[in-house]
């Protein structure tokens, strides 16, 4: 049992954050830059299916779609396929040799409300099943009651169970209330060893937004400048259109620079985003606005 104390953090200027985030939506991205942005977005997607009704067949279809979107050689594969733990094995088999990673949400996702030993055991088994990346949720109850040591220790325990697998720590910003809290949670997660910090589970109405992602990106920058350790960022939930996604790319570039414009350091958790990007891609090639009926849902 450690006694973790948060570093002294400067306050967040909420008005400035919202204003600056807004400014990233005003860029004009056309033609070649648009094509490059669409390609980059695809390469950064954690293509996700997290439903109670997921089947192995659906996961297989999603994997094949993620490896060769539209069967178009000009398009990259997605970064990872993100599934529930029981689907990891089939995803791993289907993706073998493709370079696409298998990510899985462990730790009693999305609420995180079960006993620590069970959460750690879930992570251990999920990694054993072949997951390359683990998306864990933090203990929001403990965080909001100010029990930072407990949140810290739990992340450390999960990180240990991850072994070689990368750990993404979900803050579930929609439940944290304020940007200050998001900033605190970001530092706490990074101090505890997170490889990525991630906004949301995608199971709440209030998911990733530009301002909340900006607060987290700036925390990543400060942490990097202070410690030299690189931490990645993953907004997830609510990013449904290509246009929204490139607002995020602009923000990453103008906050952390080109080094972060890569799937090793920036991911987008999404399910419907990919189809919107593919529709834009085909529109670019054909000049025709597209219809959802010509694009498979998974």
């Amino acid at each position, binding site marked *: 049992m450690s006694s973790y104390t948060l570093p002294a953090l400067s306050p967040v200027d909420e008005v400035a954050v919202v204003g600056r985030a807004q400014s990233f939506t005003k860029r004009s991205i056309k033609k070649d830059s648009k094509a490059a942005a669409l390609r980059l977005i695809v390469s950064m997607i954690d293509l996700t299916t997290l439903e109670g009704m997921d089947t192995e067949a659906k996961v297989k279809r999603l994997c094949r779609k993620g490896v060769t979107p539209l069967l178009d050689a000009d398009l990259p594969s997605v970064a990872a396929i993100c599934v529930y733990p029981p689907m990891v094995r089939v995803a791993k088999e289907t993706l073998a040799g493709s370079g696409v990673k298998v990510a899985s949400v462990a730790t009693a996702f999305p609420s995180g409300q079960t006993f620590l030993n069970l959460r750690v055991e879930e992570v251990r088994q999920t990694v054993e099943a072949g997951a390359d990346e683990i998306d864990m949720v933090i203990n929001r109850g403990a965080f909001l009651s100010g029990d930072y040591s407990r949140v810290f220790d739990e992340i450390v325990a999960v990180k240990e169970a991850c072994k070689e697998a990368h750990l993404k720590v979900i803050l579930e910003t929609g439940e944290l209330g304020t940007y200050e809290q998001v900033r605190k949670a970001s530092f706490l997660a990074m101090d505890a060893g997170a490889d990525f910090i991630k906004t949301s589970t995608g199971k709440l109405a209030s998911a990733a937004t530009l301002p909340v992602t900006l607060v987290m990106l700036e925390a990543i920058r400060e942490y990097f400048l202070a410690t030299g350790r690189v931490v990645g960022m993953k907004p997830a939930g609510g990013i449904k259109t290509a246009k929204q996604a490139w607002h995020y790319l602009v923000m990453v570039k103008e906050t952390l620079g080109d080094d972060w414009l890569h799937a090793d350091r920036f991911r987008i958790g999404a399910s419907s985003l990919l189809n919107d990007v593919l529709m834009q891609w085909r529109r670019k090639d054909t*000049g*025709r*606005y*597209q*219809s*959802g*009926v*010509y694009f498979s849902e998974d």
Partner: protein
Amino acid sequence: MAAKSTRSKAGSESKARATVAKTYKLYVGGAFIRSESGRVMAVKSGDTFVANCARASRKDFRDAVKVARGALSSWSGKTAFNRSQILYRAAEMLEDRRAVFVDRLQSHAGFNEAAAEREVSVSVDRLFWYAGWADKFTQVLGGVNPVAMPFFNFTLPEPTGVVAVLASSTSPLAGLISAIAPVLAGGNTCVVLTDHDAPTIPCDFGEVLATSDFPGGVVNLLTGSRSELLPHVASHMDVNAVALFGGSKEERVLLETEAAENVKRVRCFDDPPVADWASSDHQSPYWIESFVEWKTAWHPVGL
């Protein structure tokens, strides 16, 4: 005290009231919005400036198709009776605003008073007429087919989907309503582009629709240039049918050619001089049939 009363008197005398001029906007998704492009057209009556009116861009059209697609299930899922009631309410709302439209048709579109009165009357009557058809055309046009087996065999109309309407450029109200009422009666949603010298009239009609219980996005009214938007209308893969009123041979060829890519239904109609829209030639249950798909179902005869 004396100084104070002088001040207030001077204040009331020096301020002639400024009228609040109306900004004419697009009606998309149940909201009145500016063009995303920020463009406007100056509307003139003769040489007199009347108003600025939004000029829709291809992206406005794309956005409107998206909301029309989203509204399709709620509109086509309503009972035919309910659709009929809503069309009827639109007729009520228009009748209620008769004075406004008669005035605008004269001051914006150059109609004389008698012609303006007639244009509004035709419009109201036509809405009412299609409101009546909305829950009857399935019985008249559909049917039970004779088959030589122990089955019932039904043929029933279903909505085609999202219909783009390139409306009349002669009649800003009756022509517009004659185009969209059959589309709506059939359970479709639509995106309408009006390219008329008085685009303010269709914009005003948006306010009638907005108060008629149409779910947002069922009818979307754009004002702008037909020649600019036609290629994008014709090629859009999420548009299921196009109704073209008037139009040159080149426009029709372009429309048919581009529409072939996703097998849109294309229906070309005449755009007669404004006085002729009153004729019953311009209303027909077969105009509803233009925008339905037939489904035939076999059902075993019960024992």
